[in-house]
């Protein structure tokens, strides 16, 4: 419940406050759950890339549309979980998600005004840059030149996944994740 907005609102009982907290933590909780689900043994080809793409899409979406529910500490935790699940060098996923969050928060006012397509284009740019950054950092940390094809595939998969996830997340954004509905 937003105290800055004027109007008549129900008394903040304990249940209402609980409901509001749950709605506020929905984005972070769902992103973490999605990470765990995409790590399950579905034997999909490219599932590791899918996991990264899903985390990046969620963090970017919520950072643009509801940064209050996806603050930097939450992004840090999501990235840490992603790194641990993926057996990647710890910190690489964290940094890329934090950068995505920073970029999204900086551009959000312009992006929201422009509509879906520019947001998606911005996401594609961010995803490509971050796939490159992850490739660079992982290569540096393992002291080995890793195949760049995986990075390209990861970026392409993220670009393709974002619109699909955005449809679902936009619906959640208006309904379950909206604290004003509490």
């Amino acid at each position, binding site marked *: 419940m937003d105290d800055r907005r004027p109007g008549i609102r129900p008394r903040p009982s304990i249940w209402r406050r609980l409901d509001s907290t749950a709605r506020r933590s929905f984005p972070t909780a769902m992103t973490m759950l999605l990470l*765990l689900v995409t*790590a*399950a*043994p*579905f*034997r999909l*080809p490219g*599932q*590791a*890339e899918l996991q*990264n793409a899903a985390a990046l899409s969620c963090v970017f979406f919520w950072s643009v549309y509801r940064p209050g529910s996806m*603050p*930097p*500490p939450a*992004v*840090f935790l999501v*990235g*840490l*979980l992603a790194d*641990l*699940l*993926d*057996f*990647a*060098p*710890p*910190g*690489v996923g*964290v*940094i890329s998600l*934090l*950068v995505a*969050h*920073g970029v999204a*928060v900086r551009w959000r006012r312009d992006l929201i005004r422009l509509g879906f397509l520019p947001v998606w284009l911005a996401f594609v740019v961010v995803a490509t840059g971050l796939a490159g950054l*992850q*490739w660079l*950092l*992982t290569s540096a*940390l*393992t002291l*080995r030149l*890793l*195949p760049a094809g*995986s*990075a390209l595939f*990861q970026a392409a998969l993220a670009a393709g996944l974002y619109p699909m996830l955005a449809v679902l997340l936009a619906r959640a954004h208006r309904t379950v994740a909206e604290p004003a509905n509490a």
Partner: protein
Amino acid sequence: MIRLSVPLRQALAKLTLPVFIVASFGLMLLGKADTLLAERARMTVADALAPIYDALAEPLSVVHRAIAGARHLATLYEDNARLREENVRLRRWQSVALALDAENTTLKAQLRWIPDPAPSYVTARVVADAGGVYARAVLLSLGPNHSVTKGQIALDDRGLVGRVTELGARSARVLLLTDMNSRVPVTLEGSRARAILAGTNGARPRLMYWPEGVQPAEGERVVTSAEANTYPPGLPVGVVRYSASNVPEVMPLARLDRLEVVRLFDYGLKGVIPPETSVARLPERRR
């Protein structure tokens, strides 16, 4: 809650992101400096998730089998014809193998050959992919009181899969032989030449360092070699295939893309000693 002035609160809010970015760089350094800590953290997460994924694996594999079954129905007739033909060929090979086995037994008896001890093994279910984007590995679910140790060798029903590299209380990570960091000492079965099989993260690892004067032949079988005391000799690994750019690669016999169950063999090899046991070194087992 502490009441802060508005400008101070805004300044703090602006600082959070840079602070966390610095923290993640710190995390990266920590992970590089203390690999054991990172490994423990990962295996704790894996231990917590392995039973859940294990429970999920059963219904998921039913679905996979149903899909595969439907696909097989379409090619039933061709498959049947091919299998009949293959069966005839294999029967011929079976009689050859039985004759050779009998001959081998008599020759070994005459030589007073000391037989290799039968290795002990446990079977474990593959519950998840544990590779990420830049590695090739699988996660196994083990019982709580397992006897698996690091360095044990994983095989599926056809050939070598990889080695146990990380171990938790109820899960283990097996690095596949296709991983970038995997190096397997191998013998080319035709020429008995030694070589190293180096993973590339692709489907086919590459052969390296074969001796001069020997050229790996297309279709030649590749088995493990006992050099470096990490693998027992003679485990089937794969078949030599030349790539389009004329590089000898090995097509693994094991079906690494659809592993469901693997066997972990304890050959008692301590060639590469894992970091934890380097202090209390186990006595070398006589073979």
